């Protein structure tokens, strides 16, 4: 009898232990993964940004805010911030608008729609390095497709060396990024458009809503969550783009396309100054997060206005 009671108590205790700890055990793999993949590198990067790291002697010295002081005192950094803001403005605006245009076009029923949808995916399937090489040829001053087109149309009488001009160089590196990103934006928006129930439009028509009103209060309102994601992706790309720009200009001519990410690459992988690289990385992360949050706030603030 006593042993039966003891057994019952033990089983209850085990059940209690299970209730208390099993959730943690089940969460553990996810938490460990998040810690290893996100939190630990983040903490390391923050720590490195306050350190001077000597890779050769395998020695790390704490230097306080010295790296940030050097960074904020550098002419190149402020130039990179200025260039990056202009670059991001193009990379956020162009793919979002053109992506929306293509999505609205390809959601309609017309002959050749499936070919159009296939073509839409193609740029997205290209690696960034290939995009950079491709656009280098497009804007080439001697035999570039763009010059050829403008010349054939009679719009120019002499080929233009686009990449020699600081403003054009920035525009075309941004356009190369925007071109591929348009594809991605359009795919997301197209997927969202396909989920809008036709009944909503029918009901709106019955209520006398015109085309503009239907777009504003049904299409745009329905797309708002997807649009937020698209904008966020484009903001992230606008500040973190590196590959295509590096291939096309390496930050030149002069400092015309010196993005913060190019500066980060140079500090980290050419100079092997991991402390400065980490500082740039943290500042870049904060800028990206800040701009991203502004967009989210703006979209959701306008949401309450419409609701």
């Amino acid at each position, binding site marked *: 009898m006593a042993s039966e009671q003891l057994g019952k108590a033990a089983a209850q205790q085990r059940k209690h232990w299970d209730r208390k700890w*099993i959730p943690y*055990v089940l969460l553990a793999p996810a938490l460990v993964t998040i810690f290893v993949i996100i939190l630990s590198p983040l903490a390391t990067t923050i720590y490195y940004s306050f350190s001077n790291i000597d*890779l*050769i*002697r*395998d020695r790390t010295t704490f230097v306080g805010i010295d790296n940030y002081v050097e960074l904020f005192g550098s002419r*190149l950094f402020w130039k990179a911030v200025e260039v990056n803001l202009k670059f991001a403005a193009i990379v956020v605006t162009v793919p979002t608008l053109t992506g929306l245009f293509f999505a609205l076009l390809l959601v309609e029923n017309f002959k050749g729609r499936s070919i159009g949808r296939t073509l839409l995916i193609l740029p997205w399937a290209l690696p960034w390095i290939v995009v950079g090489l491709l656009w*280098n040829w497009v804007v*080439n*001053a*001697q*035999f570039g497709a763009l010059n050829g087109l403008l010349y054939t149309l009679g719009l120019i009488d002499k080929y233009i*060396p*686009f*990449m*020699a001009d600081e403003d054009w*160089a920035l525009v075309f590196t941004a356009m190369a990024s925007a071109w591929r990103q348009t594809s991605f934006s359009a795919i997301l928006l197209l997927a969202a458009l396909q989920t809008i129930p036709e009944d909503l439009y029918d009901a709106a028509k019955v209520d006398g809503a015109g085309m503009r009103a239907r777009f504003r209060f049904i299409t745009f309102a329905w797309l708002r969550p997807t649009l937020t994601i698209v904008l966020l992706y484009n903001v992230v790309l606008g500040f973190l783009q590196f590959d295509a720009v590096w291939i*096309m*200009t*390496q*930050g*030149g*001519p*002069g*400092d015309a396309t010196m993005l913060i990410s190019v500066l980060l690459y*140079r500090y*980290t*992988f*050419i*100079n*092997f*100054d991991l402390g400065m690289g980490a500082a740039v990385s943290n500042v870049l992360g904060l800028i990206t997060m800040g701009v991203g949050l502004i967009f989210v706030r703006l979209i959701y603030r306008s949401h309450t206005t419409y609701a």
Partner: protein
Amino acid sequence: MRNRRSISRRQFLQTAGAGLASLALAGAPASRLLAQGDTLQFYGWDFQPDTIRQHLDNYTAQSGTSVDLHIIPNVGYSTGLQTKILGGVHMDVYYNFKYNSTRFFNAGWARRMDDLPDADAVMGEMFASSVPSYTTPEGQLISMPYFSAVHVLHYNERLLSASGFDAPPETKQDLYDQCKKLKEDGVEAPYLAYWIKEFCEEYLQVYLLSEGVTPFSPEGEPAFADDSRTADVFEWWQAMFQDGMTSPTQLTDQPGEQMTAMQNGTSAFYVLHHYFLKLMNSGGGPEVDHLRIAGRMPGSDGKTFQMGEVVQMSDGPNVDKSWDLVKFYTWKDANGERSVHKSWAAAAALGAPYPDFYDDPEVQANYGAYYDFDQIKDMFANNSDVVQARNQPWYSEFQTHVGDEIQRMLQGNLAPADAVTSLADKVVELREQYS
């Protein structure tokens, strides 16, 4: 009906945990074995990996020592190599960029080789001008030649002749004047310079040496700053760019675009490594038959810059075998043949810092009839220099600074004299920082 055995949540977690633990335990000794085995570990970048594999297979056939090949992409190679070494990966023999060779040696990742058998013979066979490229200022051999090249002035003989010039330019002023005439005669962008940021520093060496300027002291001090001819070179560069003697896109153009301009005759001069003549000829084009290499760089001294990348080896239990492989790869095989260098000559006209290499009929056939081998040999032997400061640990940081400042200067945003000061200040700052 099948008898299904149920498994409790606890059993599942226990089994999974045990499985993961055994996997982790099994992984650790495997990586240690990799370092301790008899098989040599060879690391290289991704230029013709199949050819590298072929070389290593040939070595195995000759020596009986097997070699594992690990390829790291060229872009990010230094980073990849250092990350692996710091992570405890053992590599016996590896490609390295020359500017990293002293850094790796100082860190203990590369071994000196001058105390190993045949080292004296290796150095003795090299062009005397090449030896400092592979040694420390104290004369320790710390790397061996993967390939060598000299910067040369390529020119289009037909275009020059059509504009009334029967010889390539001898001085900077000659080059400017010839470009001006060629431009008047319709050659769009007579002079091509590989002025992308990453490459400006190599050009700096070429033009300083051509004017007889000593770029750096043996200790790595910026000797160029004390020579007024440095500012002259910069002023000339600026004039060439701003007066339209070059294509305005030179600050971002890649060799592919530049070679096309030479192959099509829209440009008449191109300064880059000697093997570009083979690349241009292989690519074809209406003007390739008229492309030549000038015997000297335009400048008061006429010298040029000798460059190349290297192979290094680490210390450890495999030193003898590693050295044997290094010799095979960068000097001679067991039959006394420079088979690896010959193969690179066939692939891309890459050079080697050994005089006899250019006398070899097989090398000459592989290079192409358009090369004058006496001329190339003379350039290596008498008309070129290496810059030992490029092996210093601070050098890569200086290189990025040169790219920024030279491009600013070419665009007219920095005076040539200020550019000289800025470069010199950077060297002083970096030397102090790294001391």
